[in-house]
């Protein structure tokens, strides 16, 4: 089974921080007020952030697809 991770689209992220707030693993941070960044070591791809994101810019994808 391939491991999955959350992948925010930095170009469309509004940096509101809802994902960061909701992440149960505290795996997300807002990089200098510009966009959300996921700590891949902590992310368990639960998808809570993706559902909370008001701009729908977070996808849950295979780890190999996260650059």
């Amino acid at each position, binding site marked *: 089974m391939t491991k999955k991770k959350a992948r925010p689209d930095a170009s469309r992220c509004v*940096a509101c921080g809802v994902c960061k707030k909701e992440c149960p693993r*505290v795996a997300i941070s807002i990089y*200098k007020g510009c966009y959300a960044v996921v700590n891949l070591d902590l992310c368990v791809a639960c998808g809570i952030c993706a559902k909370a994101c008001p701009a729908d810019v977070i996808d849950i994808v295979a780890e190999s697809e996260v650059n």
Partner: protein
Amino acid sequence: MKKIRKNHWYDYLWIWSILYFALGFFNILFAWLGLIDFLLPLVFAAVFGNKWFCNNMCGRGQLLWLLGRKGKCSRRASAPKWLSSKWFRYGFLAFFLTMFGNMLFQTYLVFSKAQSLKMAIKLFWTFKVPFKWAYHASALPDWSYKFAFGFYSLMLTSTLIGLICMVLFKERTWCTFCPMGTMTQGICQLKNKDKKEN
């Protein structure tokens, strides 16, 4: 699961959001306090280069989350993409600032006595609502009341838009085109631009 996240005092700022409108309802001069919500995010962005206000302190965002998620008042459906697109965000910001400028001009008209003070608020920049009861005469000049009525209108209108979006789309859909959010992110991006190029 063990709770990793602790509660902080600033997790309860949604109370401030409600309190603001309640206080202003009884005495419009309280509307001036809204300037805190206006200036603080800009200070955070300009001085520290972050969106800490949006991310942690925004009472309106917290209120929308509370009503939408915990209160189940949101459809939690995806909003149309254009709502969070750059042109709409910056377009809405431009519109919002224009209306803010207009409000300042109206305040100036009262200040210069070219216009008399009307005890009303304006919702959605269109609908006049009488608000006489919130006016209590004091030693303060008329223009300070005019500004308060204007600022209260602006705050109430944007909150109503936020609530409508919360019901129709996701809890915090408002955040995607919130003028303050657009401005602070814009400032942060500008601040980081020079660093990235080096």
